[in-house]
Structure formats: C-alpha cells, structure tokens
C-alpha cells in the first residue's frame, strides 16, 4: 500500500468528515423541506441556523448561567447535570430556530404568496419605519421608539396592499430570501454585543475519547453529533411519511391548490414545514456549538451554501437524499483536503457535485416528487 496521507489518516478523516457531514445533513433537511413544499431555495435558512447557534449561546450563558471559563479552564459538567444542560440547550436552540423560521415565513414569503397577514404586515411596517428613521437619526433606541410609533398606521396600509393577493413570481421569492438572509445576519453583526466578532459558547462537555476505531480515537462530541443527527433525521422521516400532517406536507409539495380543496390547511402546513426545518437547524446549531463552541453573525453563510449543496447532491426534496448528500459532502471535503490541501476543499466539493449531477441530473437519490408527464 502506498504511504499516502489519505491512507494513513483515513479513519481519522472519516470520523471528522461524518461529524461535519451530519451537521450539513441536518441543515440540508431544512432546505429540502421548504424546497419540496414551496419550490423555494430558502436562502435565509442559513440564518435560521445562525440564530440557533445564538440560541445555544444564550441558553448556556444566560439561562443556565454557565461561564466561559472556570478557574482558567472550561466549565466541564458530567453525568445527569451534563445531560440536563445539553437537553436544555438543545431545546432552546430548537425553539429559537423554529420560531425564527416561522417568523421568516410570515414576513418574507407569505406576503409574496398573496395572503400576507397582520404579523407580516406589522413586522414589515416596523422595518420600514426603522430604516427610514435611520436616515435621519443614528441612535438605535430612538429609532426603535419612532418605528414603534409609526408601525400601526403603516401596517394598516400594508395589510390593505396584501389584500390584493397576487402571487409573486418565483424569482421574487428568491430575492426576498436573499434580502431576509442579509438583513438577519447583518442585524446580528450590527447590534449583537460583539458585533462582527466571534462569540464563544460555553463548553460543558469534555471532549474525551470514547472508543477506538481502526486506530483512531473517536471523541465523545463526534459520537453525539453523528448519533444525534441520525436520530433527528429518523424522527423527521417518520413524521413526514407516517403522520397525517406529514401526508399534508407531501400533498402541498405537489399541488397546493388541490390540497386546499381536499381540506388541507395549506398555510398551516407551510408553517409546520418551516418549523420543522427550523427545529432541525436548531438541532444542528446546538450540535455545532457542541463541537466548535463558537459562532458569528455570518456563521451560516458558508455552512448554508454547503448544506444546500448537500441537499442538491442527494436530490433536493428528498429527505434521505439530504442525509446522504450531507455525509458524502462532509467526507469528500475531508478526503479531498488531505489529498490536495485545504485550499482546494470547496473546489473539490463543487466538482464532485458537478460530476454527480452530470450523471444523475436530479442528485444521488433523485427527487422524491414524481414529475408530471409531457
């Protein structure tokens, strides 16, 4: 056997690749779900993930009051305390991401679907007033107060515009998504306590080796990430395939109008979809902070692009495809870096995508949604 780095370190790379791949996969689920239902690349999903990491941050630093360092070392916890803390952080991250995903839908997409409601109108009105007030005054508190005052009348007129109920073309959704993504990330970058700097999240799990795989030490955090991701993925797949609501999700994905006629509450299904995607992203965010214990206002951007790539690689709209795509991408990146050097990592990832799509134009597992005939 030749003495190449990739061969010497194969299992090492495999474990770390799978861990990162699991996170890609969880985030990819959100893209795939929303894409399946709305045919929309939810560009802002990366920001939902980012919000989740901040949810973890707040959970550990504010709700659980865990300091970053205790006596110069990390505040490790063990046993039931550890499990309790991890669960709390997980739930809070999921809640943060879930809620922001649902809000995002209300504000940036639902009005474009032609049935915007008061939540969307109020949020958009507030934002309008806010950016207009920025022109005149540069004091965030004053801006907020002015905007709050102006929100009601503006929201009222927005609601009336919404009533016209015209569905926007697909590209408009994409641009709205891009706008929302930019705005969310920038809001954190501008008004976050550390601005654009990195934030550290508390590190309560000691990263010990739990077992040895072909000579490679496997750390506990990697095990948690991989197992956690698989569990969440399984739960989601069961939900979508076995429950009535899940059936509704699939139906809306294929034909929203008919679903409505058959008694499916389409708006609710869309909310459920975003919430599910958000919750998965929140889970991913918590696992992410578990391994890397840091975050930043733009942490979602690259990860989002990668996860979307993973979703497409596996076959967008296909839940199993998201899993496969994520894992494949994580591995390919790691192996590729070992062979060609880290600077070629993304080139390798995209090249693999290109090659796969050339031979399988709808991804590794194909779209799960059948196509209509000519």
């Amino acid at each position: 056997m030749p003495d190449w780095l990739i061969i010497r370190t194969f299992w090492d790379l495999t474990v770390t690749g799978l861990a990162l791949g699991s996170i890609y996969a969880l985030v990819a689920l959100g893209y795939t779900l929303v894409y399946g239902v709305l045919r929309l690349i939810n560009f802002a999903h990366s920001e939902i993930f980012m919000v989740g990491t901040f949810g973890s941050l707040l959970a550990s630093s504010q709700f659980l009051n865990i300091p970053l360092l205790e006596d110069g070392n990390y505040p490790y916890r063990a046993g039931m305390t550890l499990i309790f803390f991890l669960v709390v952080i997980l739930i809070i991250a999921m809640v943060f991401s879930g809620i922001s995903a649902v809000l995002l839908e209300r504000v940036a997409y639902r009005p474009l679907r032609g049935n915007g409601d008061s939540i969307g109108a109020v949020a958009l009105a507030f934002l309008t007033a806010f950016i207009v007030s920025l022109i005149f005054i540069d004091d965030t508190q004053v801006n907020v107060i002015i905007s709050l005052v102006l929100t009601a009348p503006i929201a009222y007129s927005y609601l009336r515009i919404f009533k016209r109920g015209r569905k926007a073309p697909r590209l408009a959704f994409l641009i709205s998504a891009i706008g929302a993504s930019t705005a969310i990330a920038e809001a954190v970058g501008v008004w976050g306590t550390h601005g654009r700097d990195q934030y550290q999240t508390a590190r309560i799990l000691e990263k010990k080796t739990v077992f040895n795989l072909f000579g490679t030490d496997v750390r506990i955090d990697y095990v948690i990430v991989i197992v956690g991701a698989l569990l969440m993925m399984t739960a989601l797949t069961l939900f979508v395939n076995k429950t009535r609501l899940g059936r509704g999700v699939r139906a809306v994905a294929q034909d929203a109008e008919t679903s409505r006629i058959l008694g499916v509450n389409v708006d609710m299904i869309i909310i459920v979809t975003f919430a599910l995607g958000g919750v998965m992203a929140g889970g991913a965010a918590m696992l992410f902070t578990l391994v890397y214990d840091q975050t930043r206002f733009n942490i979602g951007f690259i990860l989002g692009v990668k996860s979307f790539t993973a979703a497409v690689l596996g076959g967008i709209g296909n839940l199993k495809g998201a899993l496969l795509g994520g894992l494949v991408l994580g591995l390919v990146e790691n192996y590729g870096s070992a062979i060609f050097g880290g600077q070629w990592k993304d080139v390798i990832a995209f090249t693999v995508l290109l090659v796969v799509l050339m031979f399988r134009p709808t991804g590794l597992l194909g779209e799960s949604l059948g196509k209509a005939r000519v």
Partner: protein
Amino acid sequence: MSTIGNAFAPVRDAFDSIGDAFHRMNQWQKYSFYAIVIIALYLAPFWTDIPVIGPIVDTPGTQFSTVLNDQVIIFVLVALGLNVVVGLAGLLDLGYVGFYAVGAYVTAILTSAHGNLPWLLSLPIAVVVSMLFGVILGAPTLRLRGDYLAIVTLGFGEIIRLTAKNMDWLGASRGISNIKKPPSIFGLKFGVIDPKPYYYLGLTLVLIVVFVLHRIEYSRVGRAWVAIREDEDAAELMGVHTFKFKLWAFTIGAAVGGLAGVHYAGKVGFINPDNFPLQLSILFLAAVVLGGSGNMYGAILGGVLVAYVPERLRNFADKRVFVFGVVLVLMMVFRPEGILPKRVGDEHKKRQRSSQNEEVAQ
C-alpha cells in the same frame, strides 16, 4: 376594483403610467427622448455641479464620478448580461461573477502578469475566452433543470475564484497589479485619478451592449429564449433547439460579464480573487430581479440602484447592508415583478381602457 383603494396604489401606478406614457409616444418622440437621455447620461459626472440636484445625487464620502464608473457601470453591464441568462432564457445563474472574473483575469494576464499586450487587444480576447468559459460551463450542465443549475453555477463561480486564489500563475491571493489601461483617444487620458474617461468608455460599452442585445432579443433567438423559459418541453416540441439556444444565452451572458471584467480591470489596474466573491453573484441577481427580470431596461435600472444606493447611503455606515437586505424584502413584497416589469404585447393599452382580462394567470 372599487373595493381596493389604498394610499400606495398611486405610487405603484406611477411607475406603470410612466411606462405607459413612453409606449404611447410616436417614433419621432421616442428618438428625441433617447437622444436627450443619452446626452444627459454622458454628462452624468457633472450632475453634482447642478444646484439642488447636485447635493441630492452626490455620494457622501466617495467620489461621485468614480462611483458612476466603478460601481454603476460595472453593475449595469453585468445586469444586462445576466438578464439574458436569467430574465430571458430563465436559467438561474448564481455564479455569474465567474465570467466577470474571467474577463478581468484574462486582461490582467495578457497585459501584465504573462504578457504585454495593450488593453484594447486584450478586450476581444478576454470576451472570447469568457464565452469559451460559458460553453465549458454550459455544455455539461444545461441539461439540468431549474435549481440544480443554480447550485452548479454557484459552484462554478466559486471554483473560478478559488482557482485564481490557489494558483501562483494567476497571482494567487496576491492578485495581479499593473494591469494596462485603455489607450488615450479623443483627448481622453485614461489615467489613475480621473474616472471620467473610464465612465465615458463604460457608458459607450453599455450603449453598444444595449443595441446588440436589443437586436438579439427581438429576433428568432430572443423568442426561442423566452419560449424555453416559459415551457422548455413545449419549446423543444415546437422545433426549438433548446440546448443550442440555452448555450447561446450562457455564452452571450458570459461575453457581457467578461466585458464588464475587462473594463473593471482596465480601470483599477489591480485585481485579486477577493474582488469576485460569491456574494457579488447574488447582488448581480438581485439587481436584475429588482429592476425587472426579462426587461433589459429594468435590469439596467436594477443595476444602477443596487450599485448606487449603497454608496448614497454611506451615512448608514455599518447598517448599510442591513438596510439593503430589508429593502430587498420590501421591494419584493410590494413590487414582485420588479420596478419595471416586462410588458407582454399590448397590455398597456388595456390598462388605459381598464377592460377585462388583465391579470390573468395561466
């Protein structure tokens, strides 16, 4: 109709009625209108000297005439090219910055890094090479539909940037400096400081591109593009060689993107891979859709706005990008077809008569 009266309708309708007025003009009026607009555009660097208007248009902190060239002209050129790909042929391209980079890099390589050609000579070469890249990207991927194409093009843009960043031959992350400038003619000196000659050159390029694209759009080729966008299967069954025309769309788009790159490189004299980030592709797309995807003049307007407004809003400093994001959402919510949407047939006459069958979706 009767039930829907609201305060915003007039604002929205104002755009429509401007367009309507234009459509009602006769040939002679249209040509004079064009002439006036073009002259005014060539005089744009001096707009800041006009009382009242000057302070309104001037960009705080930055040189207005530099912004006109470096930001506005570049974005307009790029938006024109991308509009062919996205707006007309309906191919979602998220890696358009790649072609822009190719144009700039070819110029840089030929005039500085590995050659000594004059800028003018590098121009056609760079445009042709960009087109070649269009073919290289397009040929294997145009089979893909919709959003698969989007992610592949996105990857392509990144591959171009990262390759430039990782190859010493391409200057790696240092970039390439001392790129040659356009030749001085008509007493216009293409120096380092005065941006006006570049702006005149850029505007001329824009006008040429508009002229050429207009001719293509209203021809068999343009019709094929729109047919593909509307229903690719049906188009093919009506005898449209879809692959060929999609490839043409890519190639022409690439040519215009490359041209923008050449102009950019000639002006700044120094490029590096960080000038061509993924985010730029997204901004380009935003420009096209914001202005009115499928309508060349809409794309131009979108390009101008996306390039100019952030400069005008420099006062917002750190909050600029945030404001930009919110504005994008608001624009899409209230003007989803863009500011100047494409008009199909004689819709405007309809609006005047406000008769039946107007906003009929299929």
